[in-house]
């Protein structure tokens, strides 16, 4: 299978002290890899390092088997797009304007959109079912709608790899499922490679092809979600007393 994003001996952290070391990730085309772990375990730090927002402490990130540093800004932006947790408050921008920002690596010096760009913006909006929002002010819509618009923005960038940091955290159950369905369609149909962090274990099981557990500055375990998401490992990962885990997840396990 075509390997899109991978890391070798990657060490991440703020400043020169690594927070997590020896990270080995492989994300192939059409696959979804999820990072799980308690708050503050470093999931976001890993994702930020993968996207180049944070300088790495050591090791290498490969994009299409080539070190990330060999890409120019523009070429990298054409390969890799992000959906971040940070809140954006752009002034006086419609949802269409926000989505159109994804065309940045393709437009000319003045950033004017050609017909082709407009069509891609429209189809990205259609894909996330946000067409009715396109003329609304981005600040005037709900969190769930914003997240869909930001996903459309990333799709519009036509990346080969998509990195998402807790994309479903602020969404209600309806929008969580809708959002993940779009992601699944993108991976199955277009062969997009996805890396994301997530807290909702019930969804991790459903959507991911590979799950990486992170705890106390190390990769605790990695594997297919059905192997990872068993009682004992979850208890260790999140420091849960056994009785509590059983109370909440017991029936899931039985299935």
């Amino acid at each position, binding site marked *: 299978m075509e390997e899109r994003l991978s890391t070798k001996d990657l060490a991440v952290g703020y400043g020169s002290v690594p927070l997590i070391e020896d990270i080995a990730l492989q994300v192939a085309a059409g696959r979804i890899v999820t990072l799980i772990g308690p708050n503050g375990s470093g999931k976001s730090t890993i994702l930020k390092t993968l996207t180049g*927002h944070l300088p790495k402490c050591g090791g290498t990130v490969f994009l299409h088997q080539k070190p990330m540093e060999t890409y120019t800004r523009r070429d990298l*932006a054409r390969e890799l*797009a992000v959906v971040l947790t940070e809140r954006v408050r*752009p*002034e006086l921008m419609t949802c269409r304007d926000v989505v159109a*920002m994804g065309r*940045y690596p393709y437009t000319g*010096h*003045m950033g004017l959109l050609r017909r082709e760009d407009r069509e891609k913006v429209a189809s990205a909006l259609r894909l996330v079912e946000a067409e009715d929002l396109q003329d609304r002010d981005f600040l005037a819509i709900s969190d769930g709608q914003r997240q869909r618009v930001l996903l459309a923005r990333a799709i519009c960038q036509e990346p080969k790899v998509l990195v998402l940091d807790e994309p479903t955290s602020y969404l209600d159950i309806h929008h969580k499922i809708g959002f993940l369905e779009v992601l699944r369609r993108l991976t199955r149909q277009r062969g997009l490679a996805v890396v994301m962090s997530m807290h909702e274990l019930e969804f991790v099981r459903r959507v991911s092809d590979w799950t990486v557990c992170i705890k106390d500055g190390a990769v605790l375990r990695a594997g297919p979600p059905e192997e990872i998401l068993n009682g004992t490992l979850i208890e260790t990962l999140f420091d849960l007393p056994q009785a509590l885990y059983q109370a909440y997840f017991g029936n899931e396990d039985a299935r």
Partner: protein
Amino acid sequence: MTGREDRVLRRRYAAAFALLACGCGVCFLWSLCSGSVPIAPGEVLGVLLSGGEDSLAAEVLWKIRLPRLLAGMILGGALALSGYLLQVFFHNPIAGPFVLGISSGAKLTVALAMIFLLERAHGAGAVFLIAAAFVGAMLSMGFVLLVARRVRGMSMLIVSGVMIGYICSAVTDFAVTFADDANIVNLHNWSLGTFSGMNWENVRAMAVVTAAVSACVFLLAKPIHAYQLGEAYAESVGVDLRRLRTLLILFSSLLAACVTAFAGPVSFVGIAVPYLMKALLRTSRPLLLIPACLLGGGLCCMICDMIARTVFSPTELSISTVTAAFGAPVVLFMMVRGKRGEG
């Protein structure tokens, strides 16, 4: 649907720019006509078109009113654009060269340069003045950036900018008070802000600087637009953040320096005009806002200067008195509305 929306928007933009251009044209002529020596509009046009220089009207127009008016227009545009760039940089609509103390920093170095160096050389070259102002603007900017790193929250940034402004103004006033040389009689007026006493050499210098910087800013329209979606997203689509941030600082300081070198500090135009232009165009696209700020700033300063020199004639108000009277309420309005929007 998209097509119709586009057409509506395009009509709105065209109407807004037509309004600004007409406003500038009308104000330009009106300002040329009014003053202590009223000149009929017909005569003004006659003098401008024929280029005659022998009548009293021609003398007044070519030597006094025209350079002053052009200076107001150019510097007003420069000021509004400088404010706009700072607002982009700090992601804050209340940032501007005056409230952040950048104008005051420039004022300080220009005053010092005039006092200490002009005793040796006669008259200051326009380029020299701009250079001195730029040094001061960058020094203030440096302080503001240092503070911005330490404090979280925009209100603290503004407060520290105002403090820097006060410190610089205090030092300037001190220097001006004790330097009552014949050469610097005008320094007092200048240090309060005025467009009077402009000569053509100054107008030429400020036109060149403003035009050059505006052209450069226009070429940055694309990354500026992406920057509005936040730094992380901007970087993820390929914006060179460090380069963009450096250029924003450099250009906004250069524009503010150019204004201060010739007209002294002019308050609130840098905040109020970009806000009004955004309200008028209902967009944040830099490709539209940059020219709108230039035109709107020019128009605003022309009107304010006309008020400053004619309303209490022969006594002239300082330009900041007038711009503050109009600009400060706009800023207050912005803050009240902004609060409501967030809550």
